[in-house]
């Protein structure tokens, strides 16, 4: 039994609700023991894990049980925090924004309903992880590839809903969504797009229905619970190339971004590129204490010295090229080489190649992975990580100005400036400025919170917002949306109150539904 109750709910009402939840789900799937609830805490909490503890977790097996949960929750005004796999590492994992909110764990809804080998799409439920999905594609010897994120423990649906990124031409995962089934707070089940037509074979084939395109409003939102999602899959390429570019100077970033941009815009670089700064490069296989024993952040000069000893420049770029015409990769690689030789001769390129039929290699990033967890202990164990993720137009001068600001603030707040950028879609970069911290060091976690709040303000002053954030900073991030007398947050609030008038679905997610807009 739990000693914590959801916000705004009396102990008696919660007890009554739990009894009804047990009736609906069976006692095994209403999780209230201390051990069960601990399993939903944020393992990388920035400070006290208990600040985002859940009072209980509920695990429906299907949409009928889900509907029953929503009706009980509405009756007793119990707020719910839906999660798919609950592995949103660095952003709160499964934990709710507000302490006591009940986690609604959809892991048991775990069917792959369809993998269409003709049209290249899948229809899945929330509890399907990237591990599961890759296994199934392999088992079927599918001719389609998955675009996975850096770690594979999470949900295929959850990652797309949270605007996650992968490393293939299908790497903007939210862009691959085609058709959803969602359950509204009142238990109504809705199919978006052509799914509204019984017998449709186009639900996962075409994104633009007769009427509004609604899929987007259910991503990073708390307007409904996504129970099924269509996702497009990439045909297996004929050839791949893995490109690594070493750029020597810290001052070369603007030139680098302006050099990459035309190649990304015209689709020569047809997947996400990653730019890593010097700090990101020195952590691999190293321990911090071997590099720096002093106070505060590792000084920039020390990072440069470490890189020089390894023969590396400040910037490292990696991306993969995909080609569906056998023999076509030669032209693509040659264009990248010539372009860099003309515009950025100080950059050093290296290229590895693959052709269909050859064994796959790790650089192709087609295997499942948990690699990002390896850096979490950088500042000591137990460690944690979370990031500042601003989106910035792919214009060298603007990217450089933002980078300098972020790097300076990290050093100022005593945190190593572990900063990467993802070139996504050609016209913008998403920063992942990762805060690596020792979870038990309160001064350090306090510094992380202060740093991120400062950076949200700094970025907003430049007209820049973030793509995603940890639970701690939902409202800090949303605070930048002030155009038109906060017209967008007010619209979100109106939609929220129309679809979820009692406010039971994920209050506070993305700053929506916790405070008056």
């Amino acid at each position, binding site marked *: 039994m739990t000693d914590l109750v959801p916000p705004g709910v009396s102990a008696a009402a919660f007890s009554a609700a739990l009894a009804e939840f047990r009736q609906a789900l069976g006692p*095994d799937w209403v*999780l209230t023991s201390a*051990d*069960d609830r*601990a*399993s*939903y*805490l944020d*393992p*990388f909490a920035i400070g006290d894990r208990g600040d985002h503890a859940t009072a209980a*977790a509920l*695990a429906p*097996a*299907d949409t009928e049980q889900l509907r029953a949960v929503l009706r009980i929750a509405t009756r007793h005004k119990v707020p719910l925090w839906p999660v798919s796999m*609950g*592995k949103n*590492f660095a952003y709160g*994992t*499964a934990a709710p924004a507000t302490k006591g909110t009940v986690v609604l*764990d959809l*892991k*048991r809804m*775990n*069917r*792959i*309903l*369809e*993998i*269409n*080998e*003709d049209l290249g799409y899948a229809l899945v439920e929330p*509890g*399907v*992880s990237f*591990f*599961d999905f890759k*296994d*199934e594609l392999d*088992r*079927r010897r599918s001719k389609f590839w998955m675009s996975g994120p850096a770690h594979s*423990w999470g949900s295929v649906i959850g990652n797309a809903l949270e605007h996650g990124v992968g490393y293939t031409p299908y790497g903007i995962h939210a862009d691959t969504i085609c058709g959803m089934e969602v359950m509204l707070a009142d238990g109504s089940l809705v199919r978006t797009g052509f799914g509204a037509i019984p017998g449709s074979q186009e639900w996962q084939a075409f994104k633009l229905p007769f009427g509004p395109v609604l899929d987007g409003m259910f991503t990073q939102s708390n307007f409904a619970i996504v129970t099924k999602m269509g996702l497009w899959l990439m045909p297996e390429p004929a050839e791949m190339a893995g490109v690594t570019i070493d750029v020597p100077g810290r001052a070369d970033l603007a030139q680098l971004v302006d050099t990459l941009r035309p190649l990304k815009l015209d689709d020569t670089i047809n997947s996400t590129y990653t730019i890593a700064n010097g700090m990101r490069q020195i952590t691999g296989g190293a321990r911090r204490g071997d590099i720096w024993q002093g106070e505060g952040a590792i000084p920039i000069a020390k990072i440069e010295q470490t890189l020089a000893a390894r023969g590396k420049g400040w910037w490292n770029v990696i991306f993969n090229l995909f080609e569906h015409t056998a023999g076509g990769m030669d032209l693509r690689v040659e264009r990248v080489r010539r372009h860099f030789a003309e515009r950025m001769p100080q950059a050093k390129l290296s290229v590895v190649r693959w052709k269909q039929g050859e064994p796959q290699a790790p650089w192709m990033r087609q295997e*499942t*992975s*948990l*690699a990002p*967890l*390896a850096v*979490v*202990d950088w500042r000591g*164990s*137990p*460690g*944690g990580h979370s990031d500042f993720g601003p989106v910035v137009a792919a214009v060298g001068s603007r990217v450089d100005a933002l980078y300098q600001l972020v790097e300076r603030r990290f050093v100022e707040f005593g945190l190593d400036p572990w900063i990467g950028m993802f070139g996504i879609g050609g016209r913008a970069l998403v920063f992942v400025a990762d805060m690596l911290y020792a979870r038990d060091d309160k001064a350090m976690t306090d510094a992380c919170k202060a740093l991120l709040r400062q950076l949200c303000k700094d970025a907003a002053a430049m007209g820049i917002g973030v793509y995603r954030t940890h639970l701690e900073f939902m409202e800090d991030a949303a605070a930048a949306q002030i155009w038109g007398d906060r017209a967008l947050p007010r619209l979100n609030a109106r939609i929220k109150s129309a679809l979820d008038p009692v406010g039971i679905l994920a209050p506070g997610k993305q700053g929506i539904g916790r405070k008056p807009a």
Partner: protein
Amino acid sequence: MKLLPFCGLAIGAALALPAIAADGGDKWTPQTFYADRCAMCHGPSGWGTRTLSRRVPAGQAELTRRAQLPASYIAFVVRHGVGSMPQFTPTEVTDRQLTELAAWLARPPGAAAGAKSG
């Protein structure tokens, strides 16, 4: 090795896979769970093994090679996490499965030849 959700009889396109309950049905074993969900970090080259190699006696960094690994400790760590290892929820591994997994891992190496090959 397949573990959690899908046993599938799906053939070709457009067939739904039958759902399997989160307890993995009859096919679940501690060995398959360990291979599918633990060994990526706790296998020979995993980051968990690398981390533990600095903390435990030589040759015992892999969990399957640990001389002493009490079942109660395993059960606690799986639900609560330890160090930088995230925890597992009851929808990923049920209490009954966790009891079996912990008992299997708690057996000393060599207690049953080959039993803890991971």
